[in-house]
């Protein structure tokens, strides 16, 4: 494994922030850590970054325990972001890359192409404080990857980004992946994670509740979700045999079926009562999994045998 977390644990003043967490992150993939606020994502990432030390457990990068030399191999975008406001864009970029061990001469040649890619080239010699907030976010992203790191770690990547910049950065990340870089990010924006990740891990109350490739995670939750789009009152559907749960959205109804229930049986019954425009059997959305899993009471999951795998 490229990056490996082995039973790491962190307590803050008696409160467990991360509990016996193990992760395997292979090289060259996009790995998403999802979880509700306060689940322990940032603490986990800070431990990988060696900013805080775990109380127990070990973290390995490329077969060696992470230490100060890891810092040059990683590009890190923390949740709390900021840049030197009084410096010019190129000064900030050179300094940040120098702190990552990349000499100024080497960085200077890369600045223009990155600024161009992010539509910031005309601001090159302006001060950071002259930029809008969105532009500062993009600049911050450039400083994260400017020194050509092997692994890129992004905490709450999408917070504060508008859809256009989000798209821009997503494309850069996909380019980086194609270039063989490993990307690890945390988010609670499920739609983005769903589109971007190869592998995913969900943390809740400091514990891992889901871990695997995107498709395996979804398969794990089975094809037990049905979306129907009907005309008329669909309230009766809730009480049909085999329907475990019904969620009404504005334009459609989502059903979660009991184990062994046959979707076609339900379709037959519904078709007899109301007009059906659409009936689709689908994988559960990450969003749904997220909501379900976040509800899991950690004390309960502890009782059923550690509960770190669902």
């Amino acid at each position, binding site marked *: 494994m490229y990056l490996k977390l082995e039973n790491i644990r962190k307590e803050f003043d008696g409160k467990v922030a991360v509990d016996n967490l193990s992760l395997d992150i292979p090289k060259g993939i996009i790995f998403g850590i999802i979880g509700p606020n306060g689940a322990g994502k940032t603490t986990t990432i800070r431990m990988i970054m060696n900013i805080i030390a775990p109380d127990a457990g070990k973290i390995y990068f490329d077969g060696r325990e992470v230490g100060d030399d890891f810092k040059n191999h990683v590009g890190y975008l923390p949740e709390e972001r900021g840049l030197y406001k009084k410096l010019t864009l190129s000064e900030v970029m050179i300094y*940040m890359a120098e702190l990552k061990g990349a000499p100024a001469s080497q960085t200077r040649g890369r600045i223009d192409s990155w600024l161009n890619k992010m539509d910031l080239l005309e601001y090159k010699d302006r001060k950071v404080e002259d930029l809008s907030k969105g532009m500062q976010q993009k600049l911050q992203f450039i400083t994260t990857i400017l020194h050509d790191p092997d692994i890129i770690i992004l905490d709450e990547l999408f917070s504060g980004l508008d859809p256009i910049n989000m798209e821009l950065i997503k494309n850069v990340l996909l380019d980086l992946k194609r270039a063989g870089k490993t990307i690890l990010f945390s988010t609670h924006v499920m739609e983005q994670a769903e589109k971007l990740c190869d592998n995913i891990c969900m943390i809740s109350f400091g514990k891992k509740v889901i871990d695997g490739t995107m498709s395996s995670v979804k398969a794990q939750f089975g094809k037990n979700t049905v979306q129907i789009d009907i005309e008329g009152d669909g309230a009766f559907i809730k009480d049909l045999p085999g329907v475990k749960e019904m969620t009404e959205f504005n334009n459609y109804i989502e059903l979660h079926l009991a184990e062994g229930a046959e979707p076609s049986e339900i379709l037959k019954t519904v078709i007899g009562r109301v007009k059906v425009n659409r009936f689709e059997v689908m994988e559960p959305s990450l969003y749904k999994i997220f909501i379900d899993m976040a509800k899991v009471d950690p004390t309960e999951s502890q009782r059923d045998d550690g509960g770190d795998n669902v």
Partner: protein
Amino acid sequence: MSKFMVILKREYIQVVKKKSFIIGIFLTPVLMAAFMLLPAWLAQKKATSSEMMAVLDNSGTGMGERFAEALETYKLEDSDEAYYVVKNIFNVEPGDSVKFKALDDSLKTEINDKKLKYFLVIKPQPHLSDDSVYVVTNSDNFTTLKRFEYRLSNLISAVKLEQTDINLPVDSVLKLTRRIDLQTRNSKGEAIPFMVKYFGGFIFVMLMFGMIVTYGSLVMRSVIEEKNSRIMEVLVSSVSPFQLMLGKIIGLGAATFTQVAIWVLVGVGIFFISGSASLDISSDITRLVFNPMIVVFFVLFMIVGYLLYSTIFALIGSIVNNEKEAQSFIFPITMSLILPVMVGMHIIQEPNSTLSLALSYIPFFAPTTMMMRIIFLAPTVTEYSLFSGILGESILSFIILVISTMIIIWLTAKIFRIGILMYGKRPTLPEIVRWIKY
């Protein structure tokens, strides 16, 4: 280039290229010189215009007239005109209090209207009590008062003499008396005037204090800025907190020494160009400034004192959220530096007292205390010993300072790495103690 050097370089350049740094290089010595020299220059200012005065003599001895006569010896610069012009001498019989009161009031009005600068009042029996001769004025000119004192003392002696049966002319009696200004010489036989040592000590201590507080608080501000703008987390993902802290302290320290070095070079340059004999006090100052012990220990105490205090400033920067919160911490720091200056008179007068020695061995007070003691004691040393006397004490004080500074740096590094990532609530003391153990 190591990361430590990258940080050091940035912190250094950031300060050195600022306009305030360049202005400070020129302005500080100018202000300091002005501060030191202006009063002296004003006091020595040559008299170019006469001062109006009057005498109200209520003694009936004719002393007022004789006083006015005596003042005629004081002339304006480069002219024959009198410095003190006595406009009126009012002789009032002793006991005529109505007339005395009226004149006294009208003269006071003239003082207020600035028509007169002084008027001298001589009450009956002037030779019996100090209260019976006084000057009314709104400006206490040191030189003038000295002159009046001298002349009046002579006149009172004369009055006293007339009332005895000693049959001698006044002048011959006065010739027999002489006042002395007592000079001091140290055990080496040198006479460095007290004022030179006093101001010498003052300059060294203020320079040290000013540099430590100015640049130490820059370390703090730099940390607070990076904390506030949330750059900190990116920084510590690139460098270790210790590299960051030390890079800042030493980078800004290098800027401090650049400033001092420029002053020293310019000062030495001026000294040699102007020629050492051009100022009469220069030989005394030379002996202070070029005393190797003073110079060496000034540099040593300044470097380690700066390290100690800037580390504490870095510590404060790491645990507060903004400069406002930091204010309450800065006061005790500046107090601990300035305390030796406040008890400075004692240290200067009793450089070997228990208090002076105790302050020398408390690291926070050591730099400023030792500077004052060394300036007063080093020129008197005839035999240097590494284990006793001022040299031995300086070495011991310095060793204590170095060890304490190392301990403080070690403790601060532990608090710093946690503190810089803590936002919001200011940590309590027990929390900070817990950080040390993390």
